């Protein structure tokens, strides 16, 4: 990849935006929230984040909001990821590696089917108020 300039970045962004407007995605946002506590980082939250973005990109999804948050209090099952899709219950997934992240995008987000075996009940007791 040749070094991108800020000008090029600006151009890419505006063409991306007009493409989005053309498709007219309504404000129904999908949220992916990746836990980044010390243990999440150590357990490879970055790989999960990368895989989310790659899969979103390869499927041309435009209406996804991706956020990083601090510790979710689930050391034992890091990396943890919360997924919010309108019309579906909010789900926290545990042990999300690159492959699971891809599955979450392709199944949960694109086909509204939950990814079994990785669903976490709820945050650890000391985190929920």
């Amino acid at each position, binding site marked *: 990849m040749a*070094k991108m300039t800020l000008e090029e970045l600006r151009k890419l962004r505006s063409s991306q935006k007009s493409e989005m407007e053309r498709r007219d995605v309504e404000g129904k946002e999908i949220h992916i929230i990746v836990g980044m506590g010390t243990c999440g980082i*150590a357990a490879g939250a970055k790989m999960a984040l*990368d895989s989310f973005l790659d899969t979103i*990109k390869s499927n041309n999804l435009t209406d996804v909001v991706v956020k990083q948050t601090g510790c979710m209090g689930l050391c034992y099952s890091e990396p943890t990821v919360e997924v919010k899709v309108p019309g579906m219950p909010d789900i926290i997934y545990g042990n999300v590696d690159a492959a699971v992240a891809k599955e979450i995008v392709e199944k949960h987000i694109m086909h509204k089917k939950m990814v079994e075996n990785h669903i976490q009940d709820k945050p650890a007791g000391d*985190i929920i108020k």
Partner: protein
Amino acid sequence: MHYSLSDMILDLFQNSIEAGAQRIHLDIVREAEELKVCLKDDGCGMTEGELEKSKDPFHSDGIKHKHRKVGLGIPFLIQTVEQAEGSFEIQSEKGKGTLFSIRFNLGNIDTPPEGDWAGLFFQALCFDGEYELIINRKIIGEEGKVGEYLLQRSELQDILGNFNESGAMILLRDYLKSQEEELLDQ
């Protein structure tokens, strides 16, 4: 554990964000076998007592984990630096901010791998909230040849808008990768 230097810095960086920093400077400079990292924030800082405690891996303030101001990052850092002939210094002032100056000895085999700097910058830029982040990435080669790039969060946000949107994130990631690749190629 696959903990690289860039992971370690991400952890410290997150402390800065949680300390409410509005302005953060991060310098990552490599010269021969030495990697210098400087992280400066204007967050809530620590008193001397808190600073001492932050170095203790077994310390917990007994309150909720989530509200713990200091992660395991500092003890990890100290241990890593100590076993690998590096050095570190933490200066902190309550209400003013915190400054980390760290030197990793890349020639020592106990120093973890550097990891992915472009990936670290990406994550550091993409936390939620309003804060300014200025990153200076530099490599000083043999014969003093300097390669570097500068990143400024407000400037990138001005171009990309909200970083949380996947489209903006993907472009940002490409942009950062291209900066780092070019630097390493020089």
